């Protein structure tokens, strides 16, 4: 036993203490294998498509893609917050439809572009707020609440358009949101990038973001720390509603028309991107960068396969398979082993 203890002296407590701090960077890598992995998958896929399609790796196509994904990027930021609290927002697609329909109807009714813009944003925020209040203060599961609103908001959109698509004669600046370019970069893409950066800051650098993660991890613990968790949760849904509304304006101005079904399936695309990026549906783990990569991964698969002129009869088969393969590669090759939390 003496030998064993003899060795001991070399294992003195000091080393453990000295390497304590300044681990932020390697810790970041360790914590974010998933993000690095999905980025790697994204790069590989892009290389693949560049080789097999002449038009994929062109500036034009890249800018197109940015513009096409702008709405998804904007909404995915707030969806990430919602899902990180262990919630979900299924109503974003419907809110997007409603916003697109509403801005068209309002402008047709003679309102100015600015007034219409503002009203649509406020309506989105209110709809989100209603979701948030019911979820937080009445403690109803988010899945059911936002599913119900998905249905009634879709109904509202249908009601105000009567099932038709309505042309938008907005002012120049309003159209620019969807169609404009600055230095050849789509305005919508610029807005999306700003939103992403702000969203990243909120999640990682503010109290709000910490509580969002904390609520997803252990809601009761955050409550016991004296935080108003109901308010935090409510706000995430309000923001999400407002963002969806804005995304609706982006799409409507891009198409030059509002209609009640532009948002069909939009919620699934966004949720899929967020989950793909590594945010846990069970809450407590959220990554903005991952969500962004998730949006791009889905977008690149879609765009690349289309450019490769894959027959529409088999494109879905390939899309689904590539998606599955991408996650498997990400999990088992890049991130090494599976995530701890489901």
């Amino acid at each position: 036993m003496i030998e064993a203890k003899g060795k001991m002296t070399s294992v003195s407590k000091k080393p453990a203490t000295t390497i304590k701090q300044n681990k932020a960077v390697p810790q970041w890598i360790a914590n974010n294998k998933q993000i690095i992995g999905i980025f790697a998958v994204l790069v590989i896929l892009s290389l693949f498509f560049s080789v097999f399609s002449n038009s994929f790796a062109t500036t034009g196509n890249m800018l197109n893609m940015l513009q096409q994904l702008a709405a998804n990027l904007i909404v995915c930021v707030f969806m990430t917050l919602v899902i990180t609290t262990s919630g979900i927002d299924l109503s974003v697609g419907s809110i997007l439809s409603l916003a697109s329909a509403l801005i068209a109807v309002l402008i047709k009714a003679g309102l100015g572009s600015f007034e219409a813009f503002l009203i649509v944003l406020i309506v989105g925020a209110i709809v989100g707020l209603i979701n948030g209040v019911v979820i937080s203060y009445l403690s109803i599961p988010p899945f059911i609440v936002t599913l119900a609103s998905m249905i009634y908001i879709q109904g509202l959109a249908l009601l105000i358009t009567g099932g038709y698509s309505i042309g938008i004669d907005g002012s120049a600046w309003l159209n620019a949101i969807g169609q404009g370019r600055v230095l050849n970069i789509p305005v919508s893409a610029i807005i999306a990038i700003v939103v992403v950066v702000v969203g990243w800051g909120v999640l990682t650098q503010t109290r709000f973001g910490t509580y969002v993660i904390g609520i997803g991890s252990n809601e009761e613990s955050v409550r016991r720390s004296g935080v108003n968790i109901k308010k935090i949760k409510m706000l995430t849904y309000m923001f999400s509603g407002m963002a969806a509304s804005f995304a609706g304006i982006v799409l409507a101005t891009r198409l030059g028309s509002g209609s009640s079904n532009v948002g069909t399936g939009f919620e699934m695309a966004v949720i899929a991107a967020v989950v793909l990026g590594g945010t846990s549906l069970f809450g407590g783990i959220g990554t903005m960068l991952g969500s962004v990569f998730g949006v791009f991964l889905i977008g690149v698969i879609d765009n690349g396969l289309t450019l490769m002129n894959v027959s529409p009869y088999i494109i879905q088969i390939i899309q689904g398979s590539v998606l599955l393969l991408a996650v498997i590669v990400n999990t088992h090759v890049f991130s090494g082993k599976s995530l701890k939390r489901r």
Partner: protein
Amino acid sequence: SSNGKSSASDGKSKQLTIGFVTINQEAYFFTESIRGAQEQAKKMGVKLVVQNPNNDPVKQNNQIENLVNQKVDAIIVDSIDTKGVIPAMKEAANAHIPVISIDAIVKSDAVSTQIGVDNAESSKELGQYVNKYIKDNMKKPAKLGVVGALNSFIQVMRQNAFLDTVKQTPSLKVVNIVDGKNVQQTAMTSAENLMTGHPEMNIAFASGEPALIGLASAVKSQHKEKKLSVFGWDLSKQAIQGIDEGWVKAVIQQHPEKFGSEGVKAAVKLAKKQKVAKTINAPVTIVTKDNVDQFKHLFK
């Protein structure tokens, strides 16, 4: 523009590429129009690229943009949102790529040629047929139920045009409209509930293929063959069976493969900078017991 491909259009050396953006691949109409286009393309020795946006107007836009990006020689579009498709078509026009709009009518300068059925006009025709049918055959006042698809602009248009026309029969009453959402199963459930709620209903209209299949299945499950006279758009096996059994009275049948083949013909001409008429009409047929036989081969 003076890119490689368009200059190749006057020589025969380079194969033309034509893009075709459809609406979905779940209805007979679109599937047939794709088939028509593919056969025509093969015949003319051009490459046809088909894209399916699955009812999503935004995706349709993206796909048109992608085709423009690939510098195809012409684009055929069956529009989901006849207004929302215009910005993308303009992009194509700006890139000097001719746009051929089939089926749904798009009102824009960007469209070089419009090939289509006026859905509203044809629905009106069917409405007039129904008005006459009621006058000639029905003793009791007509009670009409409708199975629609409110998420399809074209079908909303058909439905409204039909309703406007049949309202000319003063005794006719619309008992209810239900939304089948362009899915057979949903249409069937809605149609069954419609029949349950309105046992007095004696006329039914369906605005498209899934709606009509759903309606037909509901007629069978509710044993309404003797009570109901069914009208609608787009043939199917079930609809033909209904015509044979006598309870489906009339169905508007388009000739979707013609849209495809005419579209490709026009596209090739336009790509070769030849002149094409601004509008090409594709006729529809009202299928009844009298002429159903000539369509049966399509649904074997």
